[in-house]
């Protein structure tokens, strides 16, 4: 075993999204081209300029007992639901070191890396309301452990008994992907044998919605919620906020094979770069993203000719969607022609720090089942989008060894590209 360059595979997946309460129902919704976007029903939304969002399909309190749920921010609740699903899917039945009927795992060789973009923002804002309206004594003593951005990772780590390291990389909308990339490195370099990794976000609250809206970043198509998130379409006018989590179980190939685990795909690795350009605007030439793509190829040896599918970052903003395609052309040239590209945000909305997690689950399943989900709402493809966008219906992927990418970019100029390959 070369302890500094071990092969990493995916052995479990879990998700809770606007399309479904687990990975299977989410995947079914994605393949069917179903939108998870709707009008926000709460009274507080009535007067806002943006009144649409991708609410979670199944409330986490349906599975998390109430005494536990009331001590967890919504983002941590999502993460726990998705992590437990992924853990079970990987064949484990109890905490590491306390296995029950499933295989045992050494807690010292198990890690957890779960990220969110904004952390426990709803807890913070709700508790400030409590402070103002009900006074000092009524502020929950659980406020700090609920709002801290490492809370989802820490709670997953406690739930599964992960002692090899629990981490929370924060990079806005690239956070979930960065978490998975960090986890791949933990295993590749020998720090852990198994890492539970992903992203979560729960930011559907008037303040984030108004703030993103005032940045001119969000779609205000309140009259057509299901058509509002329309990446690559000529008339796209901003993202739609979604909520949820996606978590996967990463494992060294050696460890997975030794226990006879089901292997979804190989986690090939990552490419990372930073724009160092503007705090919110992407670097217009696409150089930053292209550099991340090039780093991916250089770091992993992945050949652009292997890439059959890309789950794009494309959030439905006028500038971002085109910039990503330009960067792909810059990095991969004509090879882009054989890459079937989809933005599943057209259906889930943009889950911010949760996006990298949920979209990795979609990418893994696309490779596993050799079918890629569509981008919905592309009624008129933007002529500047010079690539093969999967429109309307899911698309079968080729036979043989193929790879797929999940792109995630975040405010601050963070560019993270993850690569997976069929086994």
């Amino acid at each position, binding site marked *: 075993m070369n302890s500094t360059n071990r092969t990493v595979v995916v052995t479990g997946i879990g998700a809770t999204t606007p399309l479904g309460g687990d990975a299977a129902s989410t995947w079914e919704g994605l393949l069917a081209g179903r939108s998870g976007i709707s009008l926000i029903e709460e009274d507080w939304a009535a007067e806002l300029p943006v009144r649409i969002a991708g609410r979670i399909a199944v409330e986490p309190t349906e599975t998390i*007992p*109430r*005494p*536990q749920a*009331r*001590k967890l921010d919504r983002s941590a609740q999502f993460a726990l639901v998705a992590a437990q699903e992924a853990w079970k899917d990987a064949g484990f039945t109890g905490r590491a070191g306390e296995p029950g009927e499933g295989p045992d795992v050494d807690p010292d060789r198990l890690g957890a890396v779960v990220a969110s973009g904004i952390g426990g923002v709803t807890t913070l804002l709700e508790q400030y309301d409590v402070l103002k309206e009900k006074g000092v*004594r*009524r502020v*929950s*003593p*659980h406020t700090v*452990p609920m709002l801290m951005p490492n809370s989802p990772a820490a709670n997953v780590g406690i739930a599964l008994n992960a002692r090899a390291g629990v981490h929370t990389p924060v990079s806005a909308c690239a956070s979930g992907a960065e978490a998975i990339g960090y986890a791949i490195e933990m295993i590749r370099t020998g720090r852990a044998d198994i890492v539970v990794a992903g992203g979560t976000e729960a930011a559907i609250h008037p303040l984030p919605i108004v703030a993103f809206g005032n940045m001119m970043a969000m779609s205000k198509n309140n009259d057509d919620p299901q058509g509002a998130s329309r990446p690559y379409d000529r008339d796209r006018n901003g993202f739609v906020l979604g909520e949820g989590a996606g978590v996967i179980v990463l494992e060294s190939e050696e460890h997975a094979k030794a226990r006879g685990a089901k292997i979804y795909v190989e986690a090939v690795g990552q490419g990372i770069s930073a724009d160092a350009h503007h705090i919110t605007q992407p670097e217009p030439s696409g150089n930053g993203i292209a550099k991340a793509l090039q780093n991916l190829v250089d770091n992993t040896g992945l050949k652009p000719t292997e890439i059959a599918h890309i789950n794009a970052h494309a959030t439905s903003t006028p500038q971002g969607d085109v910039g990503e395609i330009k960067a792909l052309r810059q990095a991969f040239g004509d090879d882009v022609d054989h890459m079937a590209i989809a933005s599943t945000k057209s259906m889930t909305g943009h889950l911010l720090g949760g996006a990298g997690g949920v979209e990795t689950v979609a990418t893994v399943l696309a490779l596993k089942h050799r079918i890629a989900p569509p981008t919905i709402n592309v009624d008129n493809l933007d002529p500047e989008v010079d690539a093969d966008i999967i429109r309307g219906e899911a698309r079968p992927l080729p036979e043989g060894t193929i790879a797929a990418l999940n792109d995630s970019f975040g405010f601050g100029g963070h560019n993270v590209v993850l690569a997976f390959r069929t086994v």
Partner: protein
Amino acid sequence: MAATQEEIVAGLAEIVNEIAGIPVEDVQLDKSFTDDLDVDSLSMVEVVVAAEERFDVKIPDDDVKNLKTVGDATKYILEHQG
């Protein structure tokens, strides 16, 4: 009107049930909040605040650490309720 011991125990049982999910019938005078009722130090603050409102009593932070059992809390409330 001041609450009786039975009313205080019943009230604490409802509070502990709400916060920690422990069945009300398990909340008895001899039970330790931490060891028996799954009420950690943070949740104990919630129990105290809820008890203060319910029984019109002030429980200063310095006194909270002496309330180990349901019996301790009941006695404290009986002696200090307004």
